[in-house]
């Protein structure tokens, strides 16, 4: 049994899932905004990174890890609301090029401001989970207490969002506002407020993701800590379909596992190439995502 659990394919699956849940969270965060606002938030990773700095460095530098994490999540939600009210409001109804450019510009501003205030050097967050793999019969199981914490937290967040959408009135209104804004408005749903709430939820999920990424001792918190994760998260969201939260989660985890196998059996240098190839092929075959049902394009 030990030999099986520490074998190469099982190790790859475990590592792949650990990476994949983070991609899935980024993808989920992107889908939450895309469904309501038809906008791809290129600044998602940077907003989440700022929330983590606010929580762990600006407001609660000496606090307990969990306190700082809660502060970060609250900060993330606030940043989401402010972004929607202060910037995104100006972009509704404009050509689809404009929000893309604006969010890329916003990404640039956030990363530069973060580096100007907090410098580019890496900071460790005081998480108490050991990054060292559990050993089974003298061989490492590809899972550490820290990785387990990452997976459990990600599952909790996903469960929370799913429950919110499925079982609450707010969730129903959010879904209605996203799918049929005109009808919802007639039925008395405050669509604008639902848009803001969509941003708040998305940025909250983002903040949790960034805290997880930055809690890793080997990367730490830097202004660009989310860049790599964002690229893979976006690829997962695009493959899964920007309209489908379930698809985003499934393709995030799958992407994590596939890339880990590539990295182990082919070459770690080729991971990003394979990800790009998967993206191009899947977009050519199913331009609206693997998990999205074909629908008439909105003209």
């Amino acid at each position, binding site marked *: 049994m030990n030999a099986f659990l520490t074998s190469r394919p099982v190790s790859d699956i475990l590592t792949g899932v650990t990476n994949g849940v983070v991609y899935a969270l980024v993808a989920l965060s992107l889908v939450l905004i*895309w469904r309501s606002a038809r*906008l*791809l938030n*290129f600044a998602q990773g940077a907003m989440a990174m700022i929330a983590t700095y606010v929580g762990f460095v600006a407001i609660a530098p000496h606090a307990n890890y969990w306190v700082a994490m809660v502060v970060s999540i609250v900060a993330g939600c606030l940043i989401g609301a402010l972004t929607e009210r202060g*910037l995104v409001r*100006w*972009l509704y109804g*404009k*050509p*689809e*090029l*404009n*929000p*893309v*450019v*604006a969010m*890329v*510009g*916003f*990404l*640039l*501003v*956030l*990363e*530069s*401001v973060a*580096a*100007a*205030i*907090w*410098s*580019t050097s890496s900071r460790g967050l005081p998480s108490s989970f050991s990054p060292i793999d559990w050993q089974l019969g003298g061989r490492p199981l590809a899972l550490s207490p820290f990785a387990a914490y990452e997976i459990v937290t990600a599952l909790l967040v996903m469960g929370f969002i799913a429950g919110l959408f499925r079982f609450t009135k707010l969730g129903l209104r959010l879904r209605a506002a996203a799918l049929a804004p005109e009808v919802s408005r007639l039925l008395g749903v405050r669509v604008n407020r639902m848009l803001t709430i969509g941003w708040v939820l998305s940025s909250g999920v983002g903040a949790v993701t960034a805290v997880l990424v930055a809690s890793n001792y080997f990367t730490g918190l830097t202004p660009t800590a989310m860049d790599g994760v964002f*690229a893979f998260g*976006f*690829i997962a969201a*695009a493959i899964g379909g*920007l309209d489908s939260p379930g698809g985003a989660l499934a393709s995030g985890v799958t992407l994590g596992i596939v890339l880990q196998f590539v990295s182990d059996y082919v070459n770690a*240098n*080729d991971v*990003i*190439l394979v*990800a*790009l190839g998967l*993206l*191009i092929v899947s*977009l*050519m075959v199913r*331009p609206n995502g693997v998990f999205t049902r074909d629908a008439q*394009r909105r*003209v």
Partner: protein
Amino acid sequence: MRARLAVAVAFVAGVVATALLARARVAIVLVVCEALFAALAALWVSPTWRAAHPVATRLAQTVMTVDALGVVSAFVSTSVNGNLEAGVSMTIVLLGLSFLTGSSGQISLGHGAFMGVGAFAAAIWANHHAHSPIVIALLAAVVAGAAVGFLLGLPATRLRGPYLAGMTLAFAVAFGSILNAFSSWTGGDSGLQLPTAVSAPRWLVDLLPPSDSPLAAATVWLSQISLVVAGVALFAMSNLFASRVGRSMRLVRDHDVAAELAGVSLPRARVVAFVISAAYAALGGALSTLVNNSVSPATYGFALSITILALMVIGGIGTIPGAMIGGLIFAYSTSSISWITARLGLNPQGNLASQLNGIIFGVLLVGAIVAAPMGIAGAGRQLARRWRERHHLRAN
């Protein structure tokens, strides 16, 4: 008539001055060229002539711009020439991106990588064919850029805005790894050097004013070459914008359903736009390889792609003056930022000064797309129109 005379006098003055400083043997060539340019300029001044000969008008405008900058470049310092060369290469790249976005409404976050394709293609060609003329290396880069643009343009036929943006972003992020996958060709992380320092053709050196600095003689001609290449690119693009292809592209951008009804093949139009745009980016990249005598993969990272996008939006999407303004901003961005740093009394190696570039570009990018989506060129045109209207009213 008086106006034409003034133009002629001004140009002849410039010609004579140039000739005085150039070597006698070639002065005659210069004088003849400048006289021809002056004649073109004199024609260009007349609105009726311009209306009757649109292509010749564009030729005249291009020639005058290139000529004026060329004369200036012979007399300014090495560092100004360096800025000129950087700005000219960037202008070519921006023309390409501007065509893609302005004409067909597609967006690319990967133009830094297309530029890199050209930069490496030119260097690889030059390393394998040490004695082939520069023009061939530039053409090789254009072909390579067009080919890669075609490959990435294929999925673009089925994708709408944000998906396409994401795909080109992934290409920009992966570009470094792509170069590494072909490291026997691309030189891995060290990049490539051109086989010998590109030295000026003899006839060109003779055309330049004598100088006591060996460096000036060895490098000023690079500005001249860049300007000529940019002139050709500019002329082609200005005709393309006005042509049937350009018109059908704009139809695709504004009313894609109508375009299809009018018989425009949407996928084909999109791929063609992508190919042309990538080829322009590659030409800009190849030119910068030539100027720098080397190419390094680090230059063509994601940051460059974002810079290119910002320059296009700030300069003005879909216009030729917009691309030139973007090139100018690029050429002087570093020196303006060090000027600001000095004026603000910031520590030049401090955190804030290090990030000033990103902050300023980012704020300008967001501000431009929200408040002035047509950029500086668009705003300038609007101001000019308003001024003209007011002027016109008063005159009446």
